[in-house]
């Protein structure tokens, strides 16, 4: 099935994931363009990380297909998927701890097969662009949590990917750091032609950052739409947002 409209999209259709009798994902379909930010939200255990694992190749789905720019990539190894243009970050930051920030970011480019001199130039450019040039020779392990998050994202961007999956990038950040992250993330789609699928529990961040939201509950899609539509959706409020969203919705 070669759909021309999916030429520049990441799509998942009818994805089912079973773990020994437990259905973690049940017929989930989702799509992401190269110039948008989509939020993936839902309560704990609703299948968000499982979906990211399926998309990034860490898990092979029981049923359903994943395509990147129209090419079917279902069940390919993470390395192959990253070469196809989709790179993820992890719920717990996974930096190369004994390597410098500069080397960490460079490795993203090297992993994508970019030549050394170009990789170095790219890393340099990204560090300047995100204002962490002063950290370039600091080892990964010596960074603060917030800095590690940013470096991990830059390492992913350095691969020249078209789709970025961020698994809870704001977890463990304070309000100020999370605000700065919001500003930096919102520019990525236009700057790099790289669409973002983001999981996070920080509703303030998600509502301000995303153009569209996709809500999962117990492995099923329960709502899709703009932040306003989702916030007004009674099923979502009951299952996930609860009282958290009600006063906010009232205030706006």
């Amino acid at each position, binding site marked *: 099935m070669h759909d021309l409209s999916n030429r520049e999209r990441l799509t998942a259709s009818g994805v089912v994931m079973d773990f020994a009798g437990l259905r973690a994902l049940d017929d989930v379909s989702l799509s992401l363009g190269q110039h948008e930010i989509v939020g993936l939200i839902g309560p704990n255990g609703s299948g968000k990380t499982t979906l990211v694992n399926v998309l990034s190749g860490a898990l092979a789905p029981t049923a359903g297909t994943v395509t990147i720019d129209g090419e079917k990539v279902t069940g390919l190894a993470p390395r192959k998927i990253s070469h196809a243009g989709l790179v993820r970050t992890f719920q717990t930051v996974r930096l*190369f701890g004994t390597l410098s920030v500069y080397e960490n970011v460079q490795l993203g480019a090297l992993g994508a097969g970019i030549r050394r001199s170009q990789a170095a130039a790219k890393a340099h450019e990204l560090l300047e662009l995100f204002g962490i040039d002063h950290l370039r020779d600091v080892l990964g392990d010596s960074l603060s949590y917030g800095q590690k998050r940013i470096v991990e994202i830059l390492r992913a961007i350095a691969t020249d990917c078209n789709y970025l999956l961020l698994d809870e990038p704001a977890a463990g950040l304070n309000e100020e750091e999370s605000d700065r992250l919001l500003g930096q993330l919102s520019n990525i789609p236009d700057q790099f032609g790289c669409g973002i699928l983001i999981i996070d529990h920080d509703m303030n961040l998600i509502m301000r950052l995303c153009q569209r939201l996709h809500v999962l509950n117990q492995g099923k899609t329960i709502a899709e739409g703009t932040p306003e539509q989702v916030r007004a959706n009674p099923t979502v409020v009951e299952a996930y947002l609860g009282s958290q969203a009600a006063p906010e919705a009232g205030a706006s």
Partner: protein
Amino acid sequence: MTQLSRLPLARKTLPVIITLGALVVIAVGVSLFGSTVTNRIVTVMFVHVVLVLGLQLFMGNSGILSFAHVGFMAIGAYGSALMSIPAENKSRSLPNLYEPLMGVELGFLPAILVGAATAGLFAAITGVALMRLSDTAAAISSFALLVIINVVLSQWNEVTNGPRTLSGILKYTDMWTAFGWAAIGVIVAFLFKESSLGMKLRASRDNLHAADAIGINVTRTRWISFVFSAFIAGLAGGLWAHFITSFQPDALYFEMTFLVLMMLVVGGPHTITGATLGVIIVTVVNEGLRSIENNLALSGALPFKTVGMTEIVLAVVLIIMLALRPGGIIHTVELGGGVGRRRELQTSASSQKGTRR
């Protein structure tokens, strides 16, 4: 700005200069003031530098423990000896050698290169399976490989003279030859560590899943490094064989493996300055203990036998080291590789504090 851009270069070159400088001082010191005995000890030490840096290149950068490298050294030793032993000696020391090999008589350099290439080839074949494994499975398999190599060398009468001593090898390696190769080894190890291959390997050591997720082919990266590292171990074997001139398979087995791993672990497997320092320290301690052991035995001052004391003391030292400093003496940042790093850390720490407030 110019100062800032010069710092990383100093960080990369200063450790090389320090390591080479230390080796030069030792070589010059021994050639001026050393006895025949110290000359011999230091020559073997330089060969060990080549071997340990070959091992560091793979083990230090990939984080995978390898017991097989002394086996690769043995292949290099036998392979090069077969190439260089003069035909007249061969008919005496290896009377049953296959006819085509009987007449082969290469010079020193081509002989040790052939030996090293044989070790590399063997690593290339076994590495296809071995490099898919991680952690304990990889370590145990590499141990099995060492045993296999030893058993084959001990049984292959035609080529190795079996478990008996192989003799008739010409003495080509002297202290300065060994020094030269050790210096090349240091430079190659540093270049490899900073190359894109070395960086990918270190990335896979620090976080396998993250390396995979950004598209690094970990198995292939490991395999290439394993083969290259086996080649260097084979080269060390060739140098060793043409210094010792007569040896048997068991000379390159458990005892040497233990000694070499100890050198790497004590000094610090992640750093080249550490690995080199480990070779120097363990050589000094080992030789010191050995001479104490011999003197005690000769003097008859003790009512019991002192054989094996050296190994016991070394083992205790290793255990203490692992408990107190598990990453080795120089564990993460190369000696001389931290120029200006502390100041940068301070500025980054203070800017963090600023944002938290």
